[in-house]
């Protein structure tokens, strides 16, 4: 992956691209904080003939600082009454645009809505706006303050449900601000943004604030099309404080500057940093028992852990305050615990912290103050060290945010959630890990995530530059690193998917039509947009295919197929021979092996392997760390290995300094190098071993060794080196090997008979044929994607889901929503089908309130907990009922051809917090229920709050079917759980 070769487009026409940093650094005349401005007009749009009459000479709001170009550009659009999408870094100051939109609406007596993805962020924004404008209200699932205010802050989910319910606000709102709109690509919740934007009133205008996205223009085109109004794009790459990126190799003790503030990648220093990487020794690995992550955490006995060294260095160099990102809550806490010996605050600050902390905690009851999380936090905070993740009590999280903003926390261990939202920058940002677990596997941090998190580095007006430190603890490919640190932002792609609640809500409305929603979705827009491009590709490819003419094509094809078979069989044999179990004993240092050269033409697999072979000497082999991290469970013979091989290579540096190593035949020009290759690149293993000098560092030694290899080769001449015989030497007994080798023999006899094989130009001919066949395959695959994208996306799924609704009696075949469907319409915070079925099967009717609450907890709890205790029998019985219904619902969906994994659907309901919620509903104190369960305090609180949301929806549902007893029961449940610390008000309110 190379990103450096990217074409730099002039920011004048067409699509937007992230500007290459080189460009901005070379052209000094250009101001650094350039912004790009585009307008998308809907099809057939004509400008209003007369300019807007209401031109205000006075701006709606004046700012005490000079606006950056992108800010004033966006504000001009607002004043013209046109929608705008602002795409810029977190720290760039997008809030200014939102503030102006609010001020403008208030001036014009219009309503304005501000939506954000997270409740906590809404709270903070409410606070911020309230101080500025006073006529501000807040609506989240938890609290509603002054819903009649002109400016309403809410979560996007609330705005969506308001539109479905037809709140009067939908007729009064002139401006809608969608903050962090790049959340639209969120797999689970992203669809909410799409729905909200599509459903928004036709005459309202939008302000979209987003992180840098390369396809901002595409998004604006979509908005322009859906709402038939012009939409501006203001895009900037500008960071008010430039960033320096460093690498801290694990086990090393220094920082290596890899990207300077001008955006230049420093190759030499990057190499140095990798060399400084001290690999964990074998012994360490075993001790860790597969938990590689803890390598950072535990530290080695007798020496300071990396993280400690790192923080110490940062403090010494006065790089504080610092945010240290890690990707799990537990890791966050563990890292903070290692700072036990450190004290970063003076007495004065300590006093301050204690005061702020205790006054914040005053709203808690005495019992809650004794919670271990609360009491353990203060000593840590007093030393200037903080922790911030979603497992914290919300109130603690907020105190820590406040302390951090006040500069009283010098060193904050946070998870990714800290990287979005309110402006809380630090001088330095540290990535304690370069890989994150994304649900099913560990993967590298994407460049988009890196950009988002590194956005926290550098305080505007305080720091000259921000500092980003990447802690690297394993060998990374230089390209991976580069891609991460300097890569482009992630694209804003649709994550649209259907839900029953959405379909029912659309069906219920006279004008609603789920298909219309689908047609207007960003997903459809993106799919449609790809079509002309795909068609063009096909045409080009087809033309190319037709231009290839081959004589005797059929017989050539026949021969080609034979060759292919032969190659596949050979590969099969090779795989058996080269399986670590068989070959490892023979890969001693000095073993001569043949390997494939790095091919120059990457899209074509070579037809004759023999052309590409070279020889090399094994120096060493080492195990590759597997991605899944379960090193302990993988047997040595199943793991994959890398070989260090001495052979002839060409090292090339391309124009931007990226190094690439190519293995070339021995006789060609190049330098002798030891390279690491996967075993699969080895072709054959010879039975010979050569002596290798102990020290391969001097060039001479390597050159001499290779010379010896050449000598050996020439000694055996035409016959080639003697190879290890799989059966005799390597003792391979497996039947699959025998079968394959027999078939190879048979095939080889067929070759003899083939006429065309004797043709003098056979190799060239085969190459041409191969090219042609590849083109055919490519055309086929493009056609397939074309077919799937030209149809209305999700059409089949919509049909299937409607079938489900009919079968369950939620809607009739005429798309009229029935009683059950109306109940399901009300439920948006839990699985609507399962919950509705539960209700209509009378499950809630005869059980106690606390049991009911406990049962409902299974629908809101999603985290996985290992070896959680099973709930008591009567709760378990209820849970089994739930599973039973869930299974039936899932099975029915499967029958109706909705793609669903029945087992994982049933397993998505988890009984882990049933006991805790049961006790909570019974009236236990929070510390008591924390003793019952292993989960994080913050997670449990979030679950209970969500449970309350579900209960509110159930109250509405019970009301609509006229079941007053049940309604009363749900109301009782709400009053039972809505108390104390779980529903403690946010400090921002």
């Amino acid at each position, binding site marked *: 992956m190379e990103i450096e070769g990217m074409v730099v487009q002039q920011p004048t026409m067409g699509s937007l691209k992230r500007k290459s940093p080189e460009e901005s650094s070379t052209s000094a005349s250009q101001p650094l904080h350039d912004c790009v401005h585009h307008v998308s007009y809907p099809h057939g749009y004509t400008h209003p003939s007369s300019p807007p009459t209401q031109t205000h000479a006075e701006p709606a709001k004046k700012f005490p600082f000079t606006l950056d170009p992108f800010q004033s550009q966006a504000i001009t659009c607002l004043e013209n009454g046109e929608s705008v999408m602002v795409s810029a870094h977190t720290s760039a100051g997008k809030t200014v645009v939102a503030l102006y939109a609010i001020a403008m609406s208030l001036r014009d007596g219009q309503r304005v809505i501000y939506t954000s993805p997270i409740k906590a962020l809404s709270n903070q924004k409410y606070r911020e706006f309230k101080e500025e404008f006073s006529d501000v209200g807040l609506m989240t699932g938890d609290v509603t303050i002054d819903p009649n205010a002109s400016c309403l802050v809410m979560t996007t989910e609330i705005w969506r449900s308001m539109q479905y319910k037809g709140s009067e606000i939908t007729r*009064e709102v002139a401006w809608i601000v969608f903050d962090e709109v790049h959340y639209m690509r969120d797999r689970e919740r992203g669809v909410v943004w799409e729905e909200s934007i599509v459903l928004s009133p036709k005459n309202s205008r939008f302000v979209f604030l987003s992180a840098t996205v390369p396809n901002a223009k595409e998004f604006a085109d979509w908005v322009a099309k859906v709402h038939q109004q012009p939409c501006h794009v203001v895009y900037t790459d500008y960071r008010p404080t430039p960033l320096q990126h460093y690498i801290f190799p694990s086990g090393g003790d220094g920082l290596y500057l890899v990207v300077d503030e001008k955006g230049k990648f420093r190759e030499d220093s990057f190499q140095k940093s990798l060399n400084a990487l001290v690999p964990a020794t074998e012994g360490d690995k075993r001790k860790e028992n597969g938990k590689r992550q803890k390598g950072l955490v535990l530290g080695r006995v007798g020496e300071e852990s990396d993280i400690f060294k790192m923080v110490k260095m940062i403090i010494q160099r006065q790089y504080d305050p610092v945010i240290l990102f890690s990707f799990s809550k537990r890791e966050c806490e563990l890292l903070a615990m290692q700072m036990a010996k450190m004290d970063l605050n003076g007495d004065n600050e300590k006093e301050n912290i204690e005061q702020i902390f205790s006054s914040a905690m005053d709203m808690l009851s005495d019992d809650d103050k004794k919670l271990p999380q609360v009491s353990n936090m203060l000593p840590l905070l007093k030393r200037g060290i903080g922790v911030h993740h979603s497992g914290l009590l919300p109130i603690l999280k907020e105190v820590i945010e406040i302390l951090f903003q006040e500069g009283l926390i010098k060193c904050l261990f946070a998870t990714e959630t800290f990287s979005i939202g309110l402006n809380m920058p630090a001088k330095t940002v540290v990535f304690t890990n370069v890989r994150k677990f994304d649900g099913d596997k560990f993967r590298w941090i994407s460049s988009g995530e890196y950009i988002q998190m590194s956005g926290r580095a550098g305080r505007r007006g305080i720091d000259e530059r921000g500092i980003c430190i990447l802690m690297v603890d394993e060998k990374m490919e230089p390209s991976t690193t580069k891609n991460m640190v300097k890569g482009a932002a992630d694209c804003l792609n649709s994550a649209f998917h259907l839900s029953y609640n959405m379909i029912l809500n659309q069906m219920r409305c006279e004008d609603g039509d789920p298909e219309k929603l689908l047609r207007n979705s960003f997903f459809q827009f993106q799919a449609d947009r790809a079509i002309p491009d795909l068609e063009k590709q096909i045409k080009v490819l087809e033309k190319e295919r037709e231009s290839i003419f081959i004589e005797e094509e059929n017989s050539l094809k026949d021969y080609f197929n034979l060759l292919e078979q032969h190659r596949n069989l050979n590969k099969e044999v090779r795989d058996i021979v080269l399986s670590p179990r068989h070959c490892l004993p023979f890969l001693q240092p000095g073993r001569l092996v043949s390997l494939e050269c790095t091919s120059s033409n990457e899209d074509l697999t070579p037809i004759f392997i023999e052309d590409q072979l070279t020889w090399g000497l094994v120096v060493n082999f080492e195990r590759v760390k597997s991605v899944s991290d379960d090193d302990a469970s993988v047997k040595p013979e199943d793991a994959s290995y890398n070989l260090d091989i001495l052979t002839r290579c060409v090292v090339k540096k391309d124009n931007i300094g990226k190094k690439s190593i190519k293995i070339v035949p021995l006789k060609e020009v190049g330098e002798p190098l030891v390279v690491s290759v996967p075993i699969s690149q080895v072709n054959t293993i010879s039975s010979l071993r050569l002596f290798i000098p102990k020290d391969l560092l001097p060039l001479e030694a390597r050159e001499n060794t290779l010379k010896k290899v050449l000598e050996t080769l020439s000694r055996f001449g035409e016959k080639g080196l003697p190879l290890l015989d799989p059966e005799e030497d390597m003792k391979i007994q497996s039947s699959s090997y025998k079968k394959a080798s027999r078939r190879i023999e048979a095939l080889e006899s067929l070759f003899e008979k083939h006429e065309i094989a004797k043709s003098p130009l056979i190799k060239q001919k085969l190459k041409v044929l191969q090219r042609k066949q590849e083109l055919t395959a490519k055309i086929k695959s493009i056609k397939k994607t074309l077919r799937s994208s030209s149809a209305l996306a999700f059409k089949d799924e919509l049909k299937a889901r409607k079938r489900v609704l009919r079968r369950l009696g939620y809607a009739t075949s005429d798309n009229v929503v029935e009683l059950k469907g109306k109940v399901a319409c009300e439920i948006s915070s839990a699985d609507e089908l399962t919950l509705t079925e539960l209700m209509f099967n009378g499950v809630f009717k005869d059980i106690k309130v606390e049991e009911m609450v406990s049962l409902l907890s299974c629908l809101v709890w999603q985290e996985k907990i290992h070896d959680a205790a099973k709930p008591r029998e009567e709760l378990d019985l209820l849970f089994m009922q739930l599973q039973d219904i869930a299974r039936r619902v899932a099975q029915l969906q499967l029958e109706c051809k909705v793609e669903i994994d029945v087992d994982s659907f049933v397993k998505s309901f988890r009984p882990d917090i049933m006991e805790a919620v049961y006790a909570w509903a019974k009236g236990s104190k929070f510390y008591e229920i924390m003793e019952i369960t292993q989960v994080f305090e913050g997670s449990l609180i979030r679950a209970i709050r969500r449970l309350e949301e579900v209960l509110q929806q159930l109250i509405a549902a019970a009301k*609509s079917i*006229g079941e007053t007893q049940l309604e009363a029961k749900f109301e009782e449940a709400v009053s039972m759980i809505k108390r104390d610390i779980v529903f403690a008000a946010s400090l921002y309110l």
Partner: protein
Amino acid sequence: MRRIQLPLSQTQKVRLQKTLEQLESLSSKVNSDASVIIADSIPVNHEDGVLKGHGTADLNGEVVATVCGVVERVNKLVYVRSLRSRYKPEVGDIVIGRVVEVAQKRWRLDINFNQDAVLMLSSMNMPDGVQRRRTALDELNMRCIFEENDVVCAEVRGFQHDGLHLQARSRKYGKLNRGQLLSVPPYLVKRQKQHFHHLEEFGIDLIIGCNGFIWVGEHIEAKDDMVEDQVSQSDPQVLLHNSVSLEEQERNYTILETRKYICRAANAVRVLSILSFNMTLEIIKGIIDLSLSMNLDIHEMLGSEFCVLVAEKEAERRSSNKKKR
């Protein structure tokens, strides 16, 4: 047999009798034993977790009907669908109402429910389509939008603390004029996906309100075009022009042809109401076509002969529908 008050001749009586019997036999029999009167106990077979919905109450552990009607069951939910009652609103219903009062920031509408419905000023789109907060001036000008006795079409938004609220989601809701308002028993209107209908061949609009109020009027093109709104918003001159043209429209009256069709459609609804048949677009259209093909005058549609004929046609239609199934 339904009590139908029509001056019938002997043969017509027999024909009607026969048709009604046929209709009875066509209707599903399931519900016939499920009809209850007030205080009847509803058998639930001592099942656990029975949900008691509308029209039921718990009396000494027994489920008892509180209204006359038909017992309906959905899984474990038991409720009684009342017959011949006032309209019972449900969220999302399309209703037609008559303004009874212009109050503070709201209109009160009679929608055939046991209380008046509320239509807030803010639940109505502004005539110029601009999105903004309602001002005191708007409040004073409320009578420009609707006054007392205006007929208004709206959607049921739901119960709030101060009563049943209505809303107008788009421009096609709002004041209805140049047409007839008919009132039929609400149980004759079944909830459908569409309640707004445009009968193009006659140039009329038919709105079948869920509350039993049915509107038949001259077709008006819904001005929900976004581009147009866009222009009107940014260009006040166009807006001015629009209002002038509105007045003009007021002045020119509906052409006779259309007025005849309106009456014809209205009488079709009346016939259905007399016969207590469900109101659907298909059936109403059928009756209009029938009357046209028989060259009947509009007033003749309400005669006994035509009613009996409609009943016979309906029986025919239903039986053929049944066969098809």
